[in-house]
């Protein structure tokens, strides 16, 4: 009994001491949660310059895969003292987290920052960071979807790259043979099918909600978009790829088994990289706007938790990494741009991936809308993404699936 008491007391005291020590040094230490993607490597490298210029601030990154981030951010936000001083926020979480009171409004910081040029951020992206008139997130990078094609095949066969959904469907069917596919698709349940199909929905003029906020995901436009999606999956996509996400689709395209895919625009540099995953096919890929023109927009944002200890230091880092100058450096190194001035910078074109890529990207971003918004966007994506998958796999008819999606989304409201 005595020994147990002593033991637990010691543990408690050690714990308390640890908390005090870390509390004392927090003023100069920024702990940042970040997703492990190519852009992170660039940010990490650039941050060495930030630390050199700000010797009183030490930056530590906690890099992890997407799936691990959401609950870590939540735990940190619920704790009396934050684990993370800076977080990155995926666009479907923006409204949810800001309404829950997890995030610091950044408007005053932005106004006070000289030469920050907030208006320079692409509007469609920056708008996602604004909830109820307050800015909670500063754009970090975009993952808007684009159409990636094997240009050499289109040139060789003399086919124009399609700009409407109808043309796209007939072209990819035409390109499909026994062991070659017109489109590598990503019909995996949840996020992946939603990211892909939302472009089809836009192309048919559909949306998730109408202007009054009513759910219209089972209207005629949605039915037609899903009918066409399923038809294309059955006739032009690799066989048995019902559970494919973007990585399998990427592999199919890079290994020369498929002619097109709808994927994140920054996959293009990856595909065209010399000595990269595409081997001899490197350089033969080209980016276009998705058929129909309007793309599903994905984007990450920098945010400062409401319970962060040193918000000034946090802002110092966020404003530095997103400043016009550093943003340019980041994009030249291969990061996905979110600033208009960077996209149109000749220097960036030359040192980056060429004028063509950046102008196409600007076209994509100017006419893009977030994957889902609202306080329950994460759940919405999962619900709709499950029903879409049920329809593609033949468990439900298109109408049944979309009706179920609509009632599921209504329930979360």
């Amino acid at each position, binding site marked *: 009994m005595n020994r147990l008491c002593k033991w637990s007391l010691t543990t408690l005291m050690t714990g308390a001491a640890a908390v005090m020590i870390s509390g004392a040094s927090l003023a100069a230490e920024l702990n940042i949660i970040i997703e492990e993607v190519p852009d992170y490597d660039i940010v990490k490298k650039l941050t060495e310059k930030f630390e050199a210029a700000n010797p009183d601030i030490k930056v530590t990154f906690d890099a992890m895969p997407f799936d691990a981030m959401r609950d870590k951010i939540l735990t940190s936000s619920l704790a009396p003292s934050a684990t993370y001083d800076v977080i990155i926020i995926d666009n479907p979480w923006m409204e949810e987290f800001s309404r829950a009171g997890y995030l610091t409004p950044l408007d005053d910081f932005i106004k006070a920052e000289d030469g920050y040029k907030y208006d320079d951020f692409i509007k469609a992206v920056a708008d996602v960071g604004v909830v109820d008139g307050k800015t909670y997130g500063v754009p970090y990078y975009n993952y808007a979807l684009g159409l990636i094609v094997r240009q050499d095949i289109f040139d060789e066969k003399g086919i124009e790259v399609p700009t409407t959904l109808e043309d796209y469907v007939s072209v990819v069917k035409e390109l499909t043979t026994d062991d070659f596919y017109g489109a590598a698709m990503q019909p995996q349940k949840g996020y992946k099918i939603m990211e892909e199909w939302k472009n089809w929905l836009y192309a048919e003029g559909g949306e998730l909600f109408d202007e009054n906020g009513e759910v219209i995901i089972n209207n005629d436009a949605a039915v037609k978009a899903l009918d066409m999606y399923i038809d294309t999956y059955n006739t032009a996509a690799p066989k048995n*790829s019902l559970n494919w996400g973007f990585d399998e689709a990427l592999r199919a395209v890079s290994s020369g088994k498929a002619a097109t895919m709808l994927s994140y625009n920054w996959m293009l540099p990856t595909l065209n990289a010399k000595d990269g995953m595409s081997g001899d096919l490197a350089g033969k890929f080209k980016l276009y706007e998705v058929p129909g023109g309007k793309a599903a927009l994905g984007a990450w944002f920098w945010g400062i938790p409401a319970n962060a200890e040193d918000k000034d230091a946090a802002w110092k880092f966020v404003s530095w990494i997103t400043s016009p100058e550093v943003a340019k450096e980041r994009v030249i190194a291969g990061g996905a741009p979110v600033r208009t001035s960077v996209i149109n910078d000749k220097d960036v074109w030359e040192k980056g991936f060429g004028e063509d890529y950046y102008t196409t990207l600007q076209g994509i971003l100017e006419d893009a809308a977030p994957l889902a918004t609202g306080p329950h966007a994460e759940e919405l994506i999962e619900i709709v993404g499950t029903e879409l998958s049920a329809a593609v796999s033949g468990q439900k008819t298109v109408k049944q699936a979309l009706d179920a999606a609509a009632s599921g989304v209504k329930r979360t409201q």
Partner: protein
Amino acid sequence: MSLRYRLILPLTLLLAAVMAYPLVFSAWISLHDYRLTRLYDVRFRGLDNYLFIFGDAPFLKAMTNTLMFVAGAVSLELVLGLGLALLLQRLVRFQNFARAVLLAPMFITPIAVGLMFRFMLSSELGVIPHYLRLMGLGVDWFNADLALFSLMLIDAWQWTPFMLLMFLAGLEALPRSPFEAAKVDGASPWMTFWHVTLPMLRPVILVALIIRALDAFKVFEYVYAITRGGPGDATEVILFHIYKTGFRFFRMGEAAAMAFVLIAITLVLVVILYSAMQRK
């Protein structure tokens, strides 16, 4: 306080801290509208969460999928494990080597097994469909009809060795005399197995079944790594569903209620299994 109560006190306290408190707290949560993103607005809902999930099609589907998975995977493992144990028992040379090789899958972490099979069974990139195609068989392992069964096969690949290990230990511990008596009486191998081996092995089978079944209820990693519960809801299992509800949608009240229903179902099944096996 007498010595014996004082002796169990530390353990009781420890269990209370690490088991009873979370259990009671989650029972409390299951009676409330408790959302992690709305902690300023936690409301008492009584049994609403429970009533809701019993009418909730995705929950019922996840529960059905799980029960099918447990029944399918565990019976497959039982049959295979018992067969392999009987064969291995007769193996004179290389027995230890064979045992070590057969046990290997158990030591791989399930998430790695999931990722491994995700690629091995992938129709375009995987080695298994490739060789099946050479034999003229085109099997889509993860279509809506087959996906749950494929997950059972993966589970059987990983956990049959556990059954094998249990049964082998059980077989080796059996007394020799009943077998000799059966031999003297002229019983066929099948009759010996059915009337001698199996009844004597019953306690071991019971324990192995319960341990494996409880473990199979917790299936998560294969689903997470391969299908994410898809296509549609074909492989949505209960733990994945609870994880999604609680930790991705932050609806802790509903998730807690689901967890309690899962506990109740598991307990009932264990009791049924136990009494069924004890009866004879």
